[in-house]
């Protein structure tokens, strides 16, 4: 059922991305030819790119290319969108991965702790921290963090990325830990708030009282009964968390000059390289449709009551 919904969603998304990029102001042919080119030269480039044909023809052609896995050629990078994305994907994936590893235990842990000691000073402090997490602009915290930890203390490199294959785990992690933690602040706040309210709901339920009344020790009650049920609503927001994470990394990559997909898209937009932007956005959309299906599958594992036909 989920799969049959995914197809129209992807179709609609593709058309939207296509339309969006053809709204972009400025003529890409003009941008490629340069300001000194003659009108004939610009016209020639336009014909080469197929930009002089009706929109619907361009759209259909685009779809026929997509069908065979061709996401187009970048106008400025002289390479295919797939290979451009492929080159930068490890950076964004590494950043998201490190950030997620920081986010999940801290975010869920803080939420559980706050709910367990509800209305205490612990709860109050955790909620203030969580609120700050979702209120501070990440790129600003990122710049401040570079000023302090890189410029002042010299603990981490201020920018750039060291691939895992080049320097091993140490330098790789050193180049990512700062942006990953900055990125995690928002996620931690978001996840802690959701976990806390989910846990409060569970703690109020009869089966927890039953478990306590029949003498199950407190740790087992919380870890086995309460925590597992808390995870159900938390899993549903996992897709949103990943989406926020990747969205946030688009901005954070600019701050730390990480050559990831976010930088690719922003540079594509600034250079009017619309096949590149189109193709990259589309790959993003495909990825998230798949991720959301996976989240649904995880959901059925965590909560066996739910079954998708």
């Amino acid at each position: 059922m989920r799969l049959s919904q995914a197809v129209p969603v992807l179709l609609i998304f593709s058309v939207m991305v296509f339309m969006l990029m053809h709204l972009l102001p400025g003529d890409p042919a003009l941008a490629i030819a340069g300001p000194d080119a003659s009108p004939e030269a610009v016209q020639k480039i336009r014909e080469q790119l197929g930009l002089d044909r009706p929109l619907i023809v361009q759209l259909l052609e685009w779809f026929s290319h997509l069908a065979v896995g061709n996401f187009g050629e970048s106008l400025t990078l002289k390479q295919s969108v797939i290979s451009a994305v492929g080159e930068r994907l490890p950076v964004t994936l590494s950043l998201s991965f490190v950030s997620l590893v920081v986010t999940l235990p801290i975010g869920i842990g803080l939420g559980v702790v706050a709910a367990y000691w509800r209305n205490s000073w612990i709860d109050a402090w955790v909620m203030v921290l969580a609120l700050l997490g979702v209120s501070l602009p990440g790129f600003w915290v990122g710049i401040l963090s570079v000023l302090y930890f890189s410029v002042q203390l010299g603990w981490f490199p201020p920018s750039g990325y060291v691939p895992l294959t080049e320097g091993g785990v140490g330098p790789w992690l050193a180049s990512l830990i700062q942006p990953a933690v900055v990125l995690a602040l928002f996620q931690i706040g978001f996840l802690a708030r959701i976990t806390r309210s989910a846990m409060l709901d569970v703690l109020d339920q009869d089966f927890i009282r039953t478990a306590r009344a029949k003498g199950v020790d407190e740790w087992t009650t919380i870890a086995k009964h309460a925590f597992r049920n808390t995870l159900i609503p938390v899993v549903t927001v996992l897709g949103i968390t990943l989406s926020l994470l990747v969205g946030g990394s688009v901005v954070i990559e600019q701050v730390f000059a990480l050559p990831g997909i976010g930088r690719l898209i922003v540079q594509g937009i600034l250079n009017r390289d619309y096949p590149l932007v189109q193709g990259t956005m589309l790959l993003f959309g495909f990825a998230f449709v798949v991720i959301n299906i996976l989240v649904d599958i995880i959901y059925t594992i965590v909560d066996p009551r739910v079954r998708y036909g």
Partner: protein
Amino acid sequence: MAEATILASGEAIAARRRFRVLRKLLHHRSFMAGFIIVAVMVIAALCAPLTGVDPNQMRVRLRFRPPSEVNWFGTDQFGRDLFTRTLYGAQLSLWIGLAVAVLSGVVGAAIGVLSAQFRRLDSLLMRIMDALMAAPAILLAIGLGAALGPQTHSVIIALAVAYIPRTARIVRASALVTRELEFIEAARVSGASSMRIMFKHLLPNASGPLLVQSTFVFAFAILAEAALSFIGIGPPPPAPSWGNIIAEGRQFAVQSWWIMLFPGFAISLAALGMNLLGDGLRDVLDPRLKVES
């Protein structure tokens, strides 16, 4: 006669309920904290002209002045007074936040109610909403903002479109529950039109979650607008948007840290205020999601 009495008492009950909600809000700590923060920022934004300084006036001799009694937040690389620019930035950012919240709220509510009422439209509208949600919201806003050109209204449209799907889903979920209640059945058999059911019954019953969601969208929009300006897709310079001031001050951040410091505080404070306000409204208006405080 009897009908008039019932009507009157109905209105009295509604008025009393409104009064009770208001009293709960007045006693809600985080709501009041958020309310005070937002109110102070709105007043500060409106008072911007009182400084008597042009936010875009350049004074080359006064470049890079650190915070002082004359320039409370210091001056930037063009010698512009940053306190004045931050106040005008508040006008711009709060206006964008409000416009995005209202626009995505109105369109999202309309889409949500329409899909709940007309089952045939439902699957089409929801697939479009799913498609809009396929890419991360900020990415969609970057793409749309770039396509529409660097202007204040294109930022507003881009962010509103990015947040419409979530609002639509929340309103739809609430309207689907309301639709199954008996009084809707009663309204339908007594000949109420779809229009009347949607706007007289479904929408008012979804107003709580809608208001809560719009408050959070306001907070998101302030953060996202700053991020878009920072990337270079916001209101064009020299517009004193908070994101623009930070982006311009970034290259001087090591020597002149004050340029980017204060607008960042302003963004954080505005987002914090709206989030607190939203938490309070959610506790009072949407007891299903009650988070005790």
